[in-house]
């Protein structure tokens, strides 16, 4: 399928999702759905580096928070100026994306000579360093946190949460389209060789360092874009919760459960795990969330190391090329986690 056709289908599905959510008539659906969509973007972004290239990034929270704190900084900046007080979310997403894209590139440049667990530890360290910086940066609230006041209503769309939901929905469509585009391009082939064998990739003419930098930059940008609207969603942004380990754990668990080598994996994993988490938060308690992630992860590493896509792929072995799982699903990524 050509990319434009795929994009159109995605948009139709997105429109249906939005219409259904409006149809339910309860704004809580938008609050819960926003979180799930946010994780669709985060896990898809994580998968571009972690699934396609095999570099496990534990620093999702860092990139997410960069996007969120870019928004806070801009909010503070315009609060004292004469400018209109509401910056459109897409603009904030772009700014957050650029900031975390640049940090992604820088982190890649500094750490991509490390492999396996060493790279992962470096990304974890990045989150700690950035959190320390933010805690000590008074302008964006420091350790006290920062309030961001959400506009009540918007013309046409209604409640502001609907607007946030819609923006995140569009970002999710964009992220999935980008991931799929990469997968079927020369870049995707290059990423797969990096995952398999970097020495052989170099010998075959693949500029591995450049490709890895492209992956960290795209991945970081998308994560930052997902974080940019977050202050408006949450209303009160605090370093503790913005840099929470949950983001890293979830954005790794979701692709692993779904399957790491195709765009469909993170999507399926997120819809399953993310929705389950939202339901559990309401019905049982939000603390059970991570327990659920842990149990599912253990289960999948044992029962289906190639994720749901891998399972379906095995089942449909007759026509493997037609299904999304073009490559062997990244047992490597699963291996370095277990």
């Amino acid at each position, binding site marked *: 399928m050509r990319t434009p056709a795929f994009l159109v289908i995605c948009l139709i599905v997105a429109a249906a999702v939005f219409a259904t959510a409006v149809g339910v008539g309860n704004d809580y659906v938008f609050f819960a759905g926003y979180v799930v969509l946010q994780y669709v973007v985060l896990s898809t972004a994580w998968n571009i580096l972690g699934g396609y290239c095999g570099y496990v990034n534990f620093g999702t929270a860092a990139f997410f928070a960069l996007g969120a704190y870019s928004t806070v900084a801009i909010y503070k900046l315009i609060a004292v100026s004469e400018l209109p007080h509401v910056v459109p979310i897409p603009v904030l997403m772009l700014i957050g994306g650029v900031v975390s894209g640049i940090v992604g590139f820088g982190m890649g440049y500094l750490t991509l000579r490390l492999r396996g667990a060493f790279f992962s530890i470096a990304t974890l360290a990045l989150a700690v360093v950035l959190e320390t910086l933010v805690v000590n940066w008074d302008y964006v609230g420091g350790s006290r946190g920062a309030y961001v006041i959400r506009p009540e209503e918007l013309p046409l769309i209604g409640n502001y949460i609907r607007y946030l939901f819609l923006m995140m929905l569009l970002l999710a469509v964009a992220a999935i389209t980008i991931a799929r585009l990469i997968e079927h391009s*020369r870049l995707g*082939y*290059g990423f*797969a*060789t990096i*995952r*398999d*064998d970097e*020495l*052989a*990739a*170099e*010998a*075959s*003419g*693949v*500029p*591995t*360092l450049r490709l890895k930098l492209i992956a960290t930059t795209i991945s970081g940008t998308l994560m930052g874009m997902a974080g940019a609207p977050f202050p408006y969603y949450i209303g009160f942004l605090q370093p503790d919760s913005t840099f929470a380990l949950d983001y890293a754990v979830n954005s790794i668990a979701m692709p692993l459960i779904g399957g790491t*080598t195709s765009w469909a994996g993170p999507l399926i994993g997120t819809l399953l795990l993310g929705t389950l988490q939202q339901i559990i938060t309401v019905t049982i308690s939000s603390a059970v969330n991570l327990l659920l992630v842990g149990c599912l992860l253990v289960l999948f590493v044992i029962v289906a190391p190639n994720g749901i896509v891998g399972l379906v792929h095995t089942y449909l072995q007759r026509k493997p*090329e037609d299904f999304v799982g073009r*490559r*062997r699903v*990244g047992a490597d990524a699963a291996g370095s986690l277990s």
Partner: protein
Amino acid sequence: MTDANTELLQVDNLGKRFGGFVALENISLAVTAGERLGLIGPNGSGKSTLVNCICGTLRNEEGSVHFDGRKLDGLRAHQRTHLGLARSFQLPRPFVSLSLIDNIRIPRLYTVAARGHSHAASDVEERCAALLREVGLETKARQRPRDLTQVEMRKLELARAMASEPKLLMADEAMAGLTPSEVEDILALLVRLNEQGVTIILIEHIMRAVMSFSRRLVVLVSGRKIADGAPNEVMRDPEVERAYLGQ
């Protein structure tokens, strides 16, 4: 293609150390375009290290390497591949998650296309299929490397090296562990390639194969070059005999 009788590869006083261990010392070597060179030596004599230094997988501390009139020092491995250097690995290193045809596709996409040749999708597909046919793997084009036997894996390794359309191919023990008839297969393939104008350096332990293939023989012992010349003369060299058969 470079004219005959010009030096395609020029290695000058190359030295490589691993900590205190001297792996290569003062190696000088010139390879003419179109040549069939055999590189032999006992285990651990530095043959693969030399290949790695020439290809950029390892950095040499001393000396320099020129290829096709260009200085290679400081270039990364993929840049050297772009210039027309190709190597097969001693232990096959296929891309395990890609099908055989995609394994071959990688160097075509990243090397041949990068040299500015046209690469229409159908053209690439056709060339990849032709290469697989050449090594007798066309029926397994859609399979994964894990389904291959050791021999097929080595053929894939060679085909992938050939896919970048190199000027110089270094085959690092492409025949280890193969039966005599399989050795013949690979030799015939290499000769055919050479007749198409590709310069070949064959690193090999199987003396029968080396002697029948090489027009010139270079012997490495303990990281030093001890002989360089016509195969028969080299094999009569007392120093070479000593290295291989003991005193």
